[in-house]
């Protein structure tokens, strides 16, 4: 149902666009035709009117000079030269015809109508249709000095036919034009709306299947709609990262906080169930405190990792002198290394300053050192060094520990992953995951190399 409505809306937009396109096309055609028609018709009408007026003036001159007979003379001459198409009539002031001249083309003149049209005022042009000859005539009158009326008519049928032809041609042409414009409109609309319909198809499939991995194909990534699709894909990517990371966090919380919680609960329950004894109660309470501390640390680290991975973490970037930072970290671990009988070497390039979140990068370095010292046996060495690469600063921590099996190597950065042979070592299993998340949030990369039995090298590259 929902899909159908979506579909309909898509189609409607398409339809509306096509209709708008056709409407615009028709309106502009009409305008163009209208202007042309008005110009054409006013031009031909003016031609006729001028001819009528000229004729009238000419005939008036003849009448004035010699009355009806002179008029007759003139008209006869015209007829012989075959340039005659005017109807000429002279009437008295009562309106009864004194003289009438009709060219041959009017086989029988509809006199009554012609006479009636003479009742209008001086010089005004009247248009009449003659019933019997299907011709249109324009006529005008002139009051003569003797009180009679001179009426001249001109045949405008040709002009009328021409204009009618123009009109009907346009009317015939407009129908295919209309269809063409609608077809073009809908073609353009469909093409334009295609990325949008792709978008809605993809969104629909995401909503229906819950598969946020789906992406929308881009046809032309350069135009505005392509840009929209790209943005949409990027948004999907971000959502995917967020959702995956949330899932990961939930899994970790659900699975791995249960263990310390169980221990905590167990301690308290055992102490309550045993016969009252201050000593064992104290011990149980101490255990509870330790476990709660452990849970808290774990929770904080999980939250940091999630924030860093989802891009929610706000990094407090300042100019950080990396060599100083590393020396501080090494100083912190000097005692531990000494206790464990491990030699801790540093070979750092002095004076390198990179933009980074000091506190978090320090924790990253501490985690790497902690890790290396944890897995290196007595008498081993741990070396921390920096290398300047193009645009990147690489910090590596190399140990002479047990090393990591190549099967395990790709997974060591995952949350709570611990190599098979290392399950006995203490640790949260979150350290490397934290390192990767923070380095990632800085726009850097992590890398691990290892030879089982010889040691491992963990390195991070931070943008300089």
């Amino acid at each position, binding site marked *: 149902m929902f899909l159908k409505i979506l579909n309909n809306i898509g189609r409607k937009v398409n339809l509306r666009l096509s209709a708008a396109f056709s409407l615009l096309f028709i309106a502009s055609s009409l305008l163009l035709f209208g202007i042309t028609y008005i110009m054409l018709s006013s031009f031909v009408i003016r031609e006729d009117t001028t001819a009528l007026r000229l004729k009238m003036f000419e005939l008036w001159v003849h009448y004035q000079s010699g009355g009806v007979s002179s008029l007759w003379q003139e008209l006869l001459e015209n007829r012989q030269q075959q340039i005659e198409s005017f109807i000429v009539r002279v009437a008295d002031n009562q309106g009864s015809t004194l003289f009438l001249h009709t060219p041959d083309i009017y086989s029988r003149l509809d006199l009554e109508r012609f006479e009636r049209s003479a009742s209008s005022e001086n010089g005004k042009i009247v248009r009449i249709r003659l019933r019997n000859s299907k011709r249109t005539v324009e006529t005008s009158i002139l009051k003569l000095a003797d009180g009679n009326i001179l009426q001249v008519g001109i045949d405008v049928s040709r002009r009328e036919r021409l204009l009618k032809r123009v009109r009907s041609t346009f009317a015939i042409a407009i129908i295919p034009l209309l269809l063409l414009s609608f077809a073009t409109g809908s073609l353009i609309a469909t093409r334009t709306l295609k990325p949008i319909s792709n978008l809605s198809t993809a969104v629909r499939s995401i909503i229906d299947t819950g598969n946020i991995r789906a992406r929308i194909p881009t046809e032309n990534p350069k135009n505005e709609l392509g840009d929209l699709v790209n943005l949409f894909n990027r948004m999907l990517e971000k959502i995917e990262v967020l959702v995956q990371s949330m899932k990961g966090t939930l899994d970790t919380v659900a699975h791995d906080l249960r263990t310390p919680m169980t221990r905590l609960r167990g301690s308290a329950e055992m102490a309550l169930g045993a016969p009252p004894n201050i000593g064992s109660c104290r011990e149980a309470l101490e255990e509870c405190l330790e476990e709660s501390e452990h849970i808290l640390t774990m929770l904080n680290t999980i939250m940091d990792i999630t924030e860093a991975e989802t891009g929610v973490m706000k990094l407090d970037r300042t100019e950080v002198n990396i060599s100083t930072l590393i020396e501080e970290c090494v100083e912190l671990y000097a*005692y531990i290394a000494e206790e464990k009988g491990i030699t801790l070497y540093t070979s750092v390039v002095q004076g390198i300053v990179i933009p980074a979140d000091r506190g978090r990068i320090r924790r990253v370095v501490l985690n790497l050192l902690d890790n290396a010292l944890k897995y290196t046996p007595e008498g081993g060495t741990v070396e921390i060094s920096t290398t300047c690469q193009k645009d990147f600063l690489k910090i590596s921590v190399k140990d002479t520990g047990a090393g990591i099996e190549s099967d395990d190597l790709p997974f060591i950065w995952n949350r709570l992953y611990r190599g098979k042979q290392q399950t006995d070592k203490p640790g949260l299993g979150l350290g490397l995951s934290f390192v990767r998340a923070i380095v990632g949030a800085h726009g850097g990369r992590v890398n691990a190399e290892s030879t089982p039995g010889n040691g491992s090298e963990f390195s991070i590259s931070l943008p300089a």
Partner: protein
Amino acid sequence: MRILVAEDDQKIASFIVKGLKQAGYVADHVSDGEEALLMAQANPYDVAVIDIMLPKMDGLTLIEILRKQRINMPVLILSAKRSVDDRIRGLKAGGDDYVTKPFSFSELLVRIQALLRRVNMTPSPVKLTVGDLSMDLLTRRVMRGGKLIELQPREFALLEYFMRNEGIVLSKTVIMEHVWGYDFDPQTNIVDVLVSRLRSKIDKTFNKRMISTIRGVGYVLKNPE
């Protein structure tokens, strides 16, 4: 010394008040922001412990109003949020220190005492003494039972911190903060290592041990007599 505790969770409030009373302070408890404001206006407190999420008026607003009214006792903020931003906001509003929940009481106490010291400006002594252990801060000589003890700089800093807070349990976090100047959870056993080194120097050859471990909480230096 009178302390105002503004905290709406009854259980947390009761353990803070109880602990403060045991430590010899007078503690008044209020459970909302408006009441806290009234109490602070009416009484001269030496320190206030204020939770950020308080009913009726939140902690930050409360602190801002107090500061505007020139009520300038040191304020320790309690918060369930642990992000750096919240800490900065709290300190900007006029707080003097910040503790995230869940916290250990000993840590709270250490911080309150540090705030009290800051205000009272007791001139720092040149010589610290606990039992037969003495430390000269000028010559940096440490003696126990007439015997000179050689300490490395960090060990010296740790012992000084212990001696200044004689009898108070110091958590790993506060030790980290004072000895190394880092405000983060160590998540390593650095503090334990340093404490055990210090212990081996000042306790090993003596019958009575001064530094003891409080499991799950931290360490304390006490006069064994």
